[in-house]
């Protein structure tokens, strides 16, 4: 089952075309890795999936993206409802400058009003979901900024989970973390895919190979190749993919 499908998706920053006719399906409850050199459009593509590119002036999008069969760029689609459904985790951990509890409660407060115990329950569930609960349960009122980088990133994952999305977009979520924190997040992603669909942008080939089920290779705005990760990393069909993943490429 594909949860997200794109059809001839093109994106322009002014007159610059950043994505060219992308046709990519994202299967449900799998991890899809987007790889490619810097500036290839993978992050741009990721950000079209929850309409984060709307915030940039001068962006024009053609083609179609559907999520659960619905055109997310159709007139009348509410980007706010979409972002509740399609959560996002960023490259640098970006907890808000408030308490751990308030960080998690921030999203739910936007969409519904919960009683105190319900909110406490939701915060706990979200933190458990991101494998952070045991580490922070005694200091929920402490500033989120007092956490380590890896914990902050898991907090951001918990924050994304708090609004119960179907899809998690991750934009190089471990590139600012040390190896141990990276491994924890990778481990977590393996568990997350039982309930969520994950799309991750990564520059780390080994990471893509380790954690993802499918890999899509982008180059200068084109989707060059997509397939099962095992296949892409052992027997890529396209010479450009081979050159990139083996590091023989500028």
């Amino acid at each position, binding site marked *: 089952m594909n949860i997200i499908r794109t059809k001839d998706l093109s994106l322009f920053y002014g007159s610059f075309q950043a994505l060219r006719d992308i046709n990519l399906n994202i299967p449900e409850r799998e991890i899809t890795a987007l790889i490619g050199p810097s500036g290839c459009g993978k992050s741009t593509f990721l950000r079209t999936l929850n309409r*984060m590119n709307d915030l940039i002036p001068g962006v024009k999008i053609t083609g179609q993206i559907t999520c659960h069969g619905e055109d997310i760029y159709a007139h009348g689609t509410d980007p706010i409802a979409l972002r*509740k459904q399609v959560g*996002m985790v*960023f490259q640098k951990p970006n907890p808000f*400058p*408030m308490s751990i509890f308030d960080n998690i409660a*921030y999203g739910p407060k936007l969409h519904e009003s919960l009683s105190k115990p319900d909110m406490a329950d939701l915060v706990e569930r979200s933190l458990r979901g991101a494998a952070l609960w045991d580490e922070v349960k005694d200091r929920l009122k402490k500033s989120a900024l007092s956490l380590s980088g890896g914990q902050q990133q898991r907090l951001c994952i918990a*924050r994304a989970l708090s*609004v119960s999305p179907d899809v998690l977009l991750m934009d190089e979520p471990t590139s600012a973390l040390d190896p141990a924190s990276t491994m924890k997040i990778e481990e977590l992603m393996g568990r997350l895919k039982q309930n969520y669909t994950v799309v991750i942008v990564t520059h780390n080939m080994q990471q893509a190979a380790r954690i993802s089920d499918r890999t899509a290779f982008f180059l200068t705005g084109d989707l060059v190749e997509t397939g099962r990760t095992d296949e892409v990393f052992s027997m890529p069909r396209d010479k450009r993919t081979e050159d990139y993943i083996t590091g023989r490429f500028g």
Partner: protein
Amino acid sequence: MKRRLSIKRRVYSGALTGFMYLAVGIAVAALIGIIGFVLYRGLGHITWEFLTTARSALRNTVGILPNILYTLYIIFTTLLIALPLGIGAAIYLNEYAAKRRLVRFIEFVIELLAGIPSIIFGLIGVLFFIQAMGMRRPSLLVGALTLSILVLPTIVRTTQEALKTVPAAYREGAFALGATKWYMIRTIILPASADGIVGGTILAVGRMVGESAALLFTAGMGYALVTNYFEALQTAGGTLTVMLFVYITEHGDFDTAFAIASVLLIIVLLLNIGVKLVKRRLKKI
């Protein structure tokens, strides 16, 4: 690489270091000298009566209580007007305005406004608020309106700087959770930049405390005691700085002037301590 620096370079370097010590020394000495001199001449004349009564021609006593109150009223009123305007303008310029050229133009105008001598604001206050708006005579309200225009650039600029220091990552994080722009600004941006905004506000208050030229003809020089805030707004009244000027020029009373100067110095000192405390408090989260 054990070779030592050449003599020429050592002399040059030594001279520069000496010069820098000298410059710092002069600056510190001047500052301490001025403060010391003011306090030396002024502190002796500060009495309980001086602080808690109004000036009385009958009893021939000098008191600055009304002027302290006026100063506080003017600061409060000015902030009431200028803060929402200034912060609102800064938020618009930083978060909403889409046209970069328009923003740059407005910022340029604000820069210009900040560079205008304050006497010109006083003139505008007289011409615009008193004559054109029909307020007829100087009052604390007119003074506060004039000061609002005067400190607006400071508030806009410092608020903008504060907003700019909020990482873009916070904005993205909030948007990604489905926050609307205003909600994001209210819950993330403003709290995160409160530190800088408070700093800018204190800076503006400092300017108000020190201002005389713009207030002389707009707020007036009265010294009758009016304790009711709303009544006071409509009364002409001199702030501490204005009165300092008045006591020297009209009465030649340097003792009172230095006493007022000492009070002003103490207020400024308290303000600075206040800023430090507020910032420390805000830093905690």
